[in-house]
């Protein structure tokens, strides 16, 4: 397709990105158009303010945590390849990739998706979800809608169920175990942009 390959030329490093993330040409073009829309001041990179301007994200209870996965201290500007790499976590899982193969683990494998979700809980990045972090998360998702006692009892029960080694915090493996019956591929993949 002659016309679309010239369109792909607009996108820097498109071919490498496609290989690395597994996004198709159409996906990359869509994401690039989206990147340009978000980058209202045409700086060539995205910043915190650009994400905060996404209205649907602003009303999401964990919106600022999700933004934190893209833009955080140490990475305050986000160029297009980094943008795509984070979004690659949400591609539907490839059934063709196998663990024992020589290819590196893709961003949208089940484990990588779980790591992304884990990082939303684990704000200080110490590899464990403490009781305080879990409380904070539930606070964000529930706001003023529950009393403190109710919140504490939900947190208590959740930790009780998930914390298998009884150290008062949930490690990544315990997190994995607690969601092992969940259809991650469906719940952590975007419903469009296939």
């Amino acid at each position, binding site marked *: 397709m002659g016309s679309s390959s010239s369109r792909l030329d607009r996108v820097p490093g498109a071919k490498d990105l496609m290989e690395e993330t597994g996004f198709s040409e159409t996906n990359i073009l869509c994401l690039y158009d989206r990147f340009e829309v978000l980058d209202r001041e045409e700086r060539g990179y995205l910043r915190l303010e650009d994400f905060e*301007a996404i209205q649907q994200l602003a009303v999401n209870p964990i919106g600022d945590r999700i933004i934190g996965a893209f833009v955080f201290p140490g990475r305050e500007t986000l160029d297009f390849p980094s943008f795509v790499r984070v*979004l690659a976590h949400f591609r539907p899982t490839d059934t063709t990739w196998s663990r024992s193969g020589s290819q590196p683990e893709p961003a949208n494998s089940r484990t990588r998706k779980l790591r992304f979700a884990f990082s939303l809980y684990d704000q200080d990045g110490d590899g464990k979800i403490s009781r305080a972090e879990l409380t904070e998360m539930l606070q964000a998702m529930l706001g003023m*809608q529950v009393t403190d006692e109710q919140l504490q009892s939900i947190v208590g029960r959740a930790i009780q169920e998930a914390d298998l080694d009884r150290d008062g915090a949930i490690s990544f493996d315990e997190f994995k175990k607690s*969601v092992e019956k969940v259809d991650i591929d469906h*719940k952590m993949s975007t419903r469009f942009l296939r």
Partner: protein
Amino acid sequence: MELFFNPFDNLLCILLGISFTVWFTLLLVFIIVPAIFGVSFGIRRLYMKTLLKVFEWATLRIERGAKEKNHHFSCIYLDSAPEFEMSDIFYFARRGVESIMDDEVTKRFSAEELESWNLLTRSNYNFHYISLRLTVLWGLGLLIRYGFLLPLRVTLAFTGVGLLVFLTSVIGLLPNGRMKNFLSEKVHLMCYRICVRALTAIITYHDSENKPKNGGLCVANHTSPIDVIILASDGCYAMVGQIHGGLMGVIQKSMVKACPHIWFERSEVKDRHLVAKRLSDHVEDKSKLPILIFPEGTCINNTSVMMFKKGSFEIGATVYPVAIKYDPRFGDAFWNSSKFGMVNYLLRMMSSWAIVCSVWYLPPMSREEGEDAVQFANRVKAAIARQGGLVDLLWDGGLKRAKVKDTFKEEQQKLYSKMLTGGVKRLNVDKN
């Protein structure tokens, strides 16, 4: 051999003839005549109530089926075990990332999403086979929708559009004057009403005392191409847009014969000053109809989007904001223009159950002293958002963004907590 076929043929012809006549008479009496006079038999509302009952039943069946098979559903609200699970975050995370990718599409995945299954597989994301009865119902629904409703609606649509083109051309032959305006108004209303029935749109209008008046600008939020038909069936507006080719172009050309609409050539669309001048000329002439504008632009022509955003608010007319909100339980009115073409979209609309929406006419607003066009526009958008729901705030210069954000965030939190506190109450009882 021929002798055997002849009487049979005759019989067949007679039967066909009778059924066509009956069909058209029913159509005329129940649909077209009320459309002409603007009355309603209330059939559509009865239909809507019946559908809701059926959907409720379908949802209960699914919930029961879920408990039996212990499935995990993608829809968080149908989860059979209402307790917090570590995986609950996935729902919000996915929606957040989806809105980063494309918030046009996510607009439709509102908080009311999929609380019930409305028997359209389009909206059925993860409902597996539950029971025979449900599948039969779905099959029956399919038959009714494609076998009965769709042909009916297509016929109506053709009638409506055909009448519009024909009658406006006829009226165009009359000399300009009160008679012409009066007739043109009636004709436009009638044809739009037929189109509304062609989509089985059940519309509730609120606050009609604020309806846009001549010399004003009607600004509405935009969720689907049908918005135009919905508004125009309740009042007369001057449309703005680019001239298209094909059928659309024919309709546009004939409409402009009966009353002044503002159509631009392709080349003129880019010239902002020309656009602004034509709009303000139209608005100054108090005998002309109020202009209907969607500041977010139309789905069809995305180049208009940028242009109207400031231009329409600069011309200094009184703005009449209108909020349109669709009820997602009946059918998804959203048009993903990158995926589906217009015809495809219309067919989908006509083969869904119904389109239920509410229209609020908000009190008129004018630009205040010391307010520039962008601030004025934001004020209007905030008013519409408060009434009708989420509106594209990407265009918002930051005015009151915080206030609108908290209210909607609270809504989501409420829905999530409703699900959980049910489980928590159980917990407390167990402890005792």
